[in-house]
């Protein structure tokens, strides 16, 4: 085995004959052939075996389209079912996440600023973070009954921890020199918080917000699986109970797409607000 060529042969420039269009094409092929192969195999095997539990991808895509995206153009092609399913899910998700973000940020700043507060609350927070949020769903159902309030509480309780702990850590580890500079130039109070402390902690805060958004989607689904008759999770469980397997698969695909979409949108927002961070550190090293 030769040592030098073993490294990354695929990433080497293709030389003078490498037309850009062709390179994108070959790049696409080297990235996508496996996905295409797997989907193709699945399609063929599912058609031959006629297994009710694993419908072919083409059927899933067709059902996916029929269920939610075959509506009139005036409704952005969304069907009535799409509006019924998406709306409660989105409302609960955004309310729960926003609530956790606001409370987590505020508490995190307090904890980051005060060492005593941090040490007093540390065991409580570590324990709160360790409780799997779904175990509280039965309790929330007793307190709030089935419905949006219960779901929002579950999501908010579950996703507050990454925001809170990351904010506290970010605020605690702001560069001492940055705070001293602020002190020298008389930047105090709200100005210091908004212009110095929060921007300095922003990379960690954003990381916390990103983790909590992904987790909010998980808790949205689980709270709908257990305690709701509306929303995407309720669609999943009812199609499973009705043995409508293609509909269930379509729901899984939908949630996967949502997960990807959230990731992508958040990455865009992050790049917009934290460009200074990656750039400053890229040049430093």
């Amino acid at each position, binding site marked *: 085995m030769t040592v030098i060529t073993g490294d990354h042969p695929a990433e080497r420039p293709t030389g003078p004959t490498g037309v850009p269009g062709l390179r994108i094409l070959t790049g696409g092929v080297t990235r996508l052939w496996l996905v295409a192969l797997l989907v193709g195999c699945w399609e063929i095997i599912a058609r031959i075996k006629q297994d009710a539990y694993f419908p072919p991808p083409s059927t899933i895509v067709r059902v996916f389209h029929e269920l939610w995206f075959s509506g009139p153009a005036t409704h952005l092609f969304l069907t009535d079912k799409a509006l019924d399913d998406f709306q409660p899910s989105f409302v609960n998700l955004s309310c729960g996440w926003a609530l956790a973000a606001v409370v987590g940020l505020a508490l995190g700043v307090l904890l980051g600023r005060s060492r005593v507060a941090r040490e007093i609350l540390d065991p409580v927070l570590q324990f709160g973070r360790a409780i*799997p949020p779904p175990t509280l*769903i039965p*309790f929330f159902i007793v307190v709030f009954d089935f419905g949006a309030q219960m779901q929002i509480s579950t999501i908010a309780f579950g996703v507050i921890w990454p925001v809170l702990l990351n904010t506290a850590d970010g605020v605690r580890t702001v560069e001492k020199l940055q705070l001293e500079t602020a002190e020298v130039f008389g930047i105090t109070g709200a100005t210091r918080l908004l212009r110095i402390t929060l921007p300095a902690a922003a990379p960690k805060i954003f990381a916390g917000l990103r983790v909590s958004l992904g987790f909010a989607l998980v808790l949205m689904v689980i709270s709908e699986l257990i305690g709701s008759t509306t929303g995407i999770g309720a669609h999943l469980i009812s199609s499973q109970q009705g043995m409508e397997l293609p509909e269930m698969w379509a729901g899984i695909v939908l*949630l*996967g797409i949502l*997960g990807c979409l959230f990731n992508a949108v958040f990455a865009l927002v992050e790049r917009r607000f934290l460009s200074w961070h990656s750039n400053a550190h890229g040049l430093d090293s």
Partner: protein
Amino acid sequence: MTNRARIVRGTIGVAGVVAVAELVSRAGFADTSLPPASSVLLRAAEFFGDTEFLTAVGSTLEAWILGLLLATVVAVAVGIALSTTPWLNRATRVLVEFMRPIPSVALIPLAIVSFSSITESKVSLVFYSACWPILINTLYALRDVDPLAKETLRSFGFGKAAILLRVSVPSAAPFVATGVRISAAVGLVVVVSFELVAGNGEGIGGYLLQTQSGGGRPDLMLAGAIWAGMLGALINVGLVALERRTFRWHAVRTEASA
């Protein structure tokens, strides 16, 4: 500040939160369904002698640990295989990026219909959800291994396998361990979720679901949640301690650079 002051402060915090919860429920500010903290703690303590509950805990633990172990073995092996074969790595990256964001709880209905036994479904679900953090951490850690360390061995005439074994795997191990810790938390959420949806009374989730029937016993529900939290915290503390012991060189290095 000394360690003792920390412990004292932490104890004050815990006692304070318990006292406030007790007062809130006794004073009747909130809904009457909020049980006093003292009775919740008492129930949680009584669980130690409750065989029905302990069986439920055992069932949850079994699926959780089994799934986590399987995921660790498979994800680390796949991670090493992928990072040593770049063409396969490129092709799987798209797959990973598509499959990772699927909320694993969305697969609960699928797991219910696909497997005949509940334990099988639980283990598979934990396995699936625990794979991703470990795989991702393994891939990134192996990619970021110091090339200088690899080249040092190469210059002494070591082959690829030796480099993998002596440089890549040891320097990636701490990050893989972090992935296992993340997966442990995710796995506990997933297994309890599954039990809540389809446990048939099995596991902590199934037990919690049963306490709901017949008017509901909020004190038992919260005591169950406390147990679940304790399990999660204990496993986390255990894994952190294990990481510290095993990767002392790593802790020293990262603390020095910080």
